[in-house]
């Protein structure tokens, strides 16, 4: 079970990344480039935390990260200055969906999902981060057929929760060595990277 990292304090710096498992087939003589896409594209997040006092915050963060090194971490995926607004309680509408369009229900009628707005799907207790690929407004019945990116990596069941309010990224901490720095002023410096496991 992944460890939910504290929401406070927020990172001083976060570098989200899109992991593309495909590749460009680039001829060395300047011929046309072909792009080969593959399954499984997903997200990662590099995080630099503010210096925290060792006494409380630092200790708690380090302890959480040490547990997360073994079990995986869940962290808020930052969306700068995006006011998500009153979105209702969206869930997946219909089982066995696949591809790059997701039918959702339970939105506040008239709510507009923005192009580039992130959300996480909870499937089998695990979060999968996706992005809206168009501005779409919910109808009067609160339903949306939302174009998403990347394509679905799992088949969510009917009623699976879509977290639009605060999207979360869930995955493993990068690397086989977790380290943090302590200094004489009793501050802890932390930075880490989370990559979605699947």
């Amino acid at each position, binding site marked *: 079970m992944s460890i939910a990292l504290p929401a406070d304090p927020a990172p001083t710096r976060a570098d989200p990344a899109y992991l593309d498992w495909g590749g460009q087939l680039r001829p060395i003589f300047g011929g046309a480039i072909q*792009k080969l896409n*593959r*399954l499984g594209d997903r997200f990662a997040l590099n995080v630099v935390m503010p210096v925290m006092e060792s006494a409380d915050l630092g200790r708690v963060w380090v302890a959480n990260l040490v547990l997360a090194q073994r079990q995986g971490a869940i962290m808020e995926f930052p969306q700068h200055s995006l006011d998500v607004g009153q979105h209702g309680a969206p869930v997946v509408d219909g089982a066995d969906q696949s591809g790059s369009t997701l039918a959702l229900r339970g939105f506040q009628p008239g709510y507009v999902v923005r192009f580039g707005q992130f959300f996480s799907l909870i499937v089998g207790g695990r979060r999968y981060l996706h992005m809206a690929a168009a501005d779409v407004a919910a109808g009067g019945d609160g339903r949306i057929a939302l174009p998403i990116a990347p394509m679905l990596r799992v088949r969510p069941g009917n009623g699976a929760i879509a977290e639009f309010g605060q999207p979360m990224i869930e995955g493993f901490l990068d690397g086989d060595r977790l380290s943090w720095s302590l200094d004489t002023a009793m501050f802890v410096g932390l930075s880490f990277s989370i990559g979605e496991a699947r």
Partner: protein
Amino acid sequence: MTVLSAALDAELRTLSPTVFGAVHIDLPDYDLALLDGAGILTIGGRTYVGHDETFGTLSEIEDLTDGAGDSAPAIGITLLPASDAASAALASPLMQGAPVVISLGAVSPATGLVIDVQTIFVGELDVPTLYSSENGRRLDYEVVSVFERLFEDDESARLSAGHHRSIFPNEAGMDFVTGVAQPVYWGVAGNPSAVTVYSGGGGYSGGASFAEAY
């Protein structure tokens, strides 16, 4: 024209096709269907997953090479088993001979539907090797073509009581047969014989017979 189906051919000619590899292993008590990336696809009514809860994920597929001489075409696939129990199950002798189908296909990213697949290799599981290393554990599988069976050439067959009994354990018809030129004793290093016969020496009979032959 290519060997691919028209739909797959057309999809692979587009600017940015989405491709995948799929491996299906028909284990004695489990249907293992894996994709090379994280995802879930239905191919021919069977659901393929990127991560199997029991048997883990597909890590690598070796280059496919043809066999020459007395070796059959073979390919190596590497699995990352989800647990120690799974790796033990995958490495058990019962798994040997399980049919393996490796195919390549394209999927429509918009609908998530498979356009078509092309079968690349059909064979059977041969030798599993479990590797454990620093920060890792993997299971290498040698998958051989069905041509491997053609190399079972029965060279050990002899007209002897021992060989006869190895096939028909209760049939004693050969036991007291004398005059069998070359009995085969099971579990004995060599064929014990009091007399050593040398042959091959003195066989050269000179130019006269050579000339006669013509």
